[in-house]
């Protein structure tokens, strides 16, 4: 396929291009209770070509690009036609010129994950066993689950000398825990690991079984009003994604964000804790072939680096970093128990929770929350949180306990002051 694509590029006299091959094998198991519903296998070899079309207009150097999928089974003539049409379309999508990533020689990085040492079938079997290891109660149990074990081999080749490749392994899935009494309720949970992390999955299931038992006992919404809201686990990442998005070259270039190097992202008068955020990629190259390095995004509340893709970073005059998939945040100063002091609403499960980086608002409907009120604890469900991070960001407090997932490593919990909550 690679030779056929390169021949087509030559036939069409296209000098600037990027070719990506993704070979993916995935094995999948679907369960209802502790019963296998179905197995699936995915075996793919996919090719994508980006072509660059250069032009000069009014003495300005321009570059357009377009991508096209090259499907298995295409004839040489079909490949040539697809690439030729993409090149023509790219000529109508001209933007200010930018450089491609340059490279020298072949670089291939082998995966060191524990998943690389076994077959996908074996890994799936072991993770399935871990998934159900703590599922031993008739009252609170795993209602259903999906498990995916994937291996990807990615090769990236461009006309500027990049020729790199890497392996990537992943275990991911989701499960729903259900509790029958006193009220029949459920909670959803997803998971994702780079390693054969049987222990983390077992712990996660155990914690969620405990949470759904509490959810079954929660029977009323909180009283409407303003609360100090404590968020934990993935909700912390979701709120902090405001800062990574606002520091993205795409947001800055389009003026959706006013961030620049040195911006005090939480404002000038921070009464709470100052943010320290790094970005990390779990794969060694981004889609354009940029070699990924950790990015020190925010230090002590101050923006130190803008991140983003090839084109817009060049327009802004900053070094392209590539796209990251993990946020690493420094520990906070307070223990979780200290953060629960006073009148605090700890929301541990939303039906959905979203941070809008445009408006700075975060919102979600409460599935389960613990209302701490100077020593007493009440379980609540229903109502919603609808707050503004722009208003709350100068008084943030973080826990010194940590939480890790494929996309986040940082404080387990964060406290936001005086947040509007709808309820009874």
């Amino acid at each position, binding site marked *: 396929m690679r030779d056929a694509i390169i021949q087509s590029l030559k036939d069409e006299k296209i000098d600037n291009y990027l070719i990506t091959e993704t070979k993916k094998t995935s094995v999948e198991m679907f369960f209802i209770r502790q019963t296998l519903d179905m197995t699936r296998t995915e075996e793919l070899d996919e090719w994508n070509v980006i072509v660059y079309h250069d032009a000069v207009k009014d003495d300005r150097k321009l570059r357009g690009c377009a991508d096209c999928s090259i499907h298995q089974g295409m004839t040489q003539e079909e490949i040539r036609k697809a690439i030729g049409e993409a090149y023509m379309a790219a000529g109508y*999508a001209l933007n200010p010129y930018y450089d491609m990533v340059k490279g020298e020689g072949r670089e291939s990085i082998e995966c060191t994950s524990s998943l690389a040492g076994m077959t996908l079938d074996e890994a799936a079997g072991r993770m399935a066993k871990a998934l159900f290891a703590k599922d031993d109660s008739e009252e609170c149990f795993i209602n259903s689950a999906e498990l995916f074990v994937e291996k990807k081999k990615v090769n990236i080749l461009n006309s500027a000398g990049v020729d790199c490749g890497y392996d990537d392994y992943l275990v991911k899935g989701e499960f729903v825990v259900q509790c029958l009494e006193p009220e029949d309720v459920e909670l959803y949970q997803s998971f994702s690991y780079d390693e054969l992390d049987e222990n983390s999955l077992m712990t996660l299931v155990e914690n969620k079984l405990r949470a759904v038992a509490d959810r079954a006992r929660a029977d009323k919404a909180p009283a409407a009003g303003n609360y100090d809201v404590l968020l934990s686990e993935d909700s912390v990442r979701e709120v902090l994604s405001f800062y990574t998005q606002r520091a993205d070259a795409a947001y800055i270039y*389009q003026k959706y964000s006013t961030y620049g190097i040195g911006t005090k992202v939480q404002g000038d008068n921070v009464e709470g804790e100052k943010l320290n955020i790094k970005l990390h990629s779990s794969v060694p190259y981004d889609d354009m072939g940029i070699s990924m390095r950790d990015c020190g995004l925010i230090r002590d509340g101050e923006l130190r680096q803008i991140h983003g893709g090839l084109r817009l970073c060049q327009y802004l005059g900053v070094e392209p970093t590539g796209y990251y998939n993990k946020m690493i945040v420094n520990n906070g100063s307070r223990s979780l128990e200290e953060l629960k002091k006073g009148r605090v609403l700890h929301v541990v499960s939303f039906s959905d929770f979203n941070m*809008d980086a445009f408006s700075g608002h975060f919102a979600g409907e409460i599935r389960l929350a613990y209302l701490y009120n100077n020593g007493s604890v009440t379980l609540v469900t229903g109502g919603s949180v609808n707050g503004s991070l722009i208003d709350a960001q100068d008084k943030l407090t973080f826990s010194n306990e940590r939480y890790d997932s494929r996309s986040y490593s940082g404080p387990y919990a964060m406290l936001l002051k005086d947040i509007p909550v709808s309820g009874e």
Partner: protein
Amino acid sequence: MSEKKTVDSSAYLAGIKPQLKDLLGQLLNKYEYASVLAVDSEAKQYGVRASGISVGDAGLLCSRGFVVKVYNEGEYAEYSFNKLNENITSQAEEIIRTVEALKKAVPENIARLKLTAISDEPVSFKKSTEYEISPEQLGAEGIIDKLTALRKRAMEADERILDSSVRMSYQKYSKLFLSKNRDMEQNVMWTDCFQSFAARKGEEVKSYFTSASNLGGVEVLDKLDEKIGHAVETTVALLDSEPMVPGEYDCICTPEVTGMIVHEAFGHGVEMDMFAKKRALAEKYVGEYVASPLVNMHDGAAAADEVASYFFDDDGVLAKDTVVIENGILKQGISDTMAALRLNTEPTGNSRRESYKRKAYTRMTNTFFEPGKDKLEDMIASISDGFMLENATSGMEDPKNWGIQCMVNMAREIKNGKLTGRIFSPIVLTGYVPDLLKSISMVSDGCELSGGGFCGKGYKEFVKVSDGGPCIKARIRLG
């Protein structure tokens, strides 16, 4: 209006059909039931925004490949692939070896679900949808020129508009479904377009969006133009919006907000794969009032001509128009093939896959409330203290407990039967689904469907859907 044309068949699928039949035949030597779904899908996306112009294939929608479903001794398995070998015999052997090896990898303490074989009544046809102007006819240059003009119009309408981005996508797909007794081909094209508008006030960026979609071609682009004036005015007005005072209010939902309630709050709850897992409260309410007698709800690929219309689903079941709620009474859910086997019911043509690479689940298609008889102005006049909800942004299902979580961009205040001009934003809708649906007291006489977005099953498995209906008046908890 241009003359209607029909979407062409895939020359690729026509060429490999004999090999696929050979593969199917070899699988049927081993399995009691086998089917092959072959997909050849072309999809492109064009965008014009402050960061520049973009054009290219539209990600997941652009694909060519196959999924095989096999059944033996009560158990189903699937194998997705995109490379058809010259030696079909060895490929069939490899599929069988892989499928059987994975079954053996399942831990021994896990039981196996035993189901009956899929009913395979003979059906054979070839059908295509229609369009007026194909993307090829307008071409990349013509499409980008139109998008550029739409953006320019928005940007020039008010100097406070920070940005307006416009995109158009289309998918033209051909699917071939083969089993022992079925040989069906469908060729479908839909197009959608979307325009967002942004304005800044301090650190906060307020945004609004419009969209249009059709079962057809790029003729849909003309619909965006007529919405620009209202969108610009509203985006600017949002700069002075106020935070919502939490509480329960009389509300009028515009058709896209009605659509979000139909889809997110109720539609997901009648997906019968949730019945099979005992995850949906609706299962216990079939035959009972779940909504006001004014409410009639449909779902189906054959229920409307929109982006989720097709002739057969991804398990080879013919498309239907399912009446889900009739005069407020829940009549039935919607179902994919596997859920119907588990529940011993009839599938409703709702087996849908994100692509040939993924499992089929029960998924909505075109989902909507029927129109009523009320006039919108009478509905507004009937409210002494409430809101008109506009610009649905996101929602999440809760089939188990019928909790509502929907977000809308804005609420327009209504006092003493009149819109006051005050705007509140953003808005979270919460509450209990039947409470909301039973509180519907007025239903307008119009019905609009929009298919600008995708629907996920939880947080994945995105498929194209449309939803909508009339304006409804209901009592809703806002936060």
